[in-house]
């Protein structure tokens, strides 16, 4: 754990105080324990199909993300990775089958329930959007702000989190001033500030160079070691190969509208 933490902080010359690192870790893990369900998945798809109106894009998909598991979701561009992720955080309702988030069927959720679920599932979106008029620090704290916990955002936790993703010097910058890699790291920080039980990342390394993608991967692996359920959608197989050295990951592949477990051919 310590080495990974150091890796994450490599850009910053000074070593982080150990206590501070543990603090973040404890905070992030609390969320995991709160939602831990033995035997059932935190996210479950059962015979799910989805269509945007034309033919079915996804058919008969059954996936269960066990608490603390690490999954990749891969497939060619346009296969439906983003769509599947949206089904996993309640942004889309399945056209057939059942999606259960923390054991609750998404069809039974009202709009406020969906809002509350989003505080338990951190999402790094494919096209990350920020509030461009607010500084990066406020954007990262936004999930706290909208859930009425802004007081916590002012504290040291936010600073620690910004340090963890290496953005401590960019706190006052506005989002349009960030580089691609900085945007992705800010998005990751925003996704985990509520200590969610699950982290979904959609092409988190889409617009960044190899070094940055390794760094982001390291952060995600570290989150998984803290106990979070992680699902990364990516079409980048080299990223998956790199991850396999660090974490026990299952690879789901979308092919012919269905999800299959990918074998050793990666």
């Amino acid at each position, binding site marked *: 754990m310590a080495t990974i933490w150091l890796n994450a902080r490599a850009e910053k010359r000074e070593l982080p105080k150990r206590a501070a690192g543990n603090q973040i870790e404890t905070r992030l893990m609390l969320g995991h324990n709160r939602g831990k369900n033995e035997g059932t998945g935190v996210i479950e798809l059962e015979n799910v199909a989805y269509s945007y109106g034309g033919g079915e894009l996804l058919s008969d998909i059954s996936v269960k993300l066990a608490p603390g598991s690490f999954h990749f979701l891969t497939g060619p561009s346009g296969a439906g990775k983003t769509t599947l992720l949206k089904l996993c955080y309640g942004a889309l309702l399945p056209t057939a089958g059942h999606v259960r988030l923390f054991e609750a069927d998404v069809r039974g959720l009202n709009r*406020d329930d969906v809002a509350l679920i989003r505080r338990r599932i951190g999402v790094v979106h494919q096209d990350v*959007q920020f509030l461009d008029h607010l500084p990066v620090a*406020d954007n990262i704290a*936004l999930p706290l702000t909208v859930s009425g916990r802004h007081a916590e955002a002012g504290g040291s936790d936010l600073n620690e989190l910004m340090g963890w993703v290496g953005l401590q010097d960019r706190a006052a910058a506005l989002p349009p001033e960030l580089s691609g890699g900085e945007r992705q790291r800010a998005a990751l920080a925003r996704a985990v500030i509520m200590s969610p039980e699950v982290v979904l990342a959609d092409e988190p390394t889409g617009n960044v160079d190899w070094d940055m993608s390794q760094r982001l991967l390291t952060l995600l692996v570290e989150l998984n070691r803290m106990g979070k359920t992680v699902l990364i959608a990516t079409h980048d197989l080299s990223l998956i190969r790199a991850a396999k050295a660090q974490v026990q990951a299952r690879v789901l592949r979308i092919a012919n509208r269905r999800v299959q477990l990918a074998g050793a051919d990666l």
Partner: protein
Amino acid sequence: MKLDLAQLRALLAGDRQADRVVPPSGYTAQLTLFAAGAMAFLAVFALALSLAAGRLAERWGAELAHTATLRIVAPADQRAEQTAAALAVLETTPGVAEARALTDAEQAALLAPWFGADLPLDTLPVPRLIETKTESGFDPTGLSLRLAAEVPGAVLDDHGRWRAPLVSAASRLRVLGWVVALLIVAAVAAMVTLAANAALAANAQVIAVLRLVGATDSYIANAFVRRFTLRALSGSAVGVIVGLLAVWLMPTGSADAPGLLTGIGFRGAGWLVPLMVPLVAGLVALLATNTAARRALGGLT
């Protein structure tokens, strides 16, 4: 439209952080303020006109409903005789409570403003006036017929001919004043709805981001509702204050000069009526923005 108590409480409590998540809107905010102020200013005048017209209608109605005037137009030598005859007829007419011929001095006083004080009244063919106080059961048509038969020089003027249209015009004016005030309220609602829709459209991306990071609909709606309610409230408060000052500075007639123009203004508790304008404007803005926001949010997941 959904506006539950919890949301209302959150709205009133205010939230500096929530206000920051929606970017400041610059000059459109000024426009909303200005429009609300102008509307409130107009509403004050509509209300002043309405209240004044109402007072006038009541007063004219009450004063004139119970009087009638008889003119005796006859050659000088028959005037006294016909006056006596008319008084006799009036005495036996149901609904006439009191009848009294004006004295020369009283008639001279009435004419003095037009002809001067030293008018030789007895040498002029000035009709004699008989004032009557009437009560229920008075039948002006029946009396006119009787007078025509018995006192050829008598002309009955029960004031109804010119009273009725005046009273109904004043009543109509009162209703119109309220209709104008209501139209102004509706215009405020329309204006705020347009402004809120524009703000919601301009901030579509902000709203989408807020939804994605776990903001509830109420939270997002309130960020806009608070803004527009405050603008409508403060803009119209300024408009009302300026409007009240303008009404207060209007020249007023004395109490016995029942002119409409000099009567425009507020009396007593009437001054409280325009104070309702900012409250109504604020409430209307709250409901209009909430409706617009809920509609905009409905399309988002």
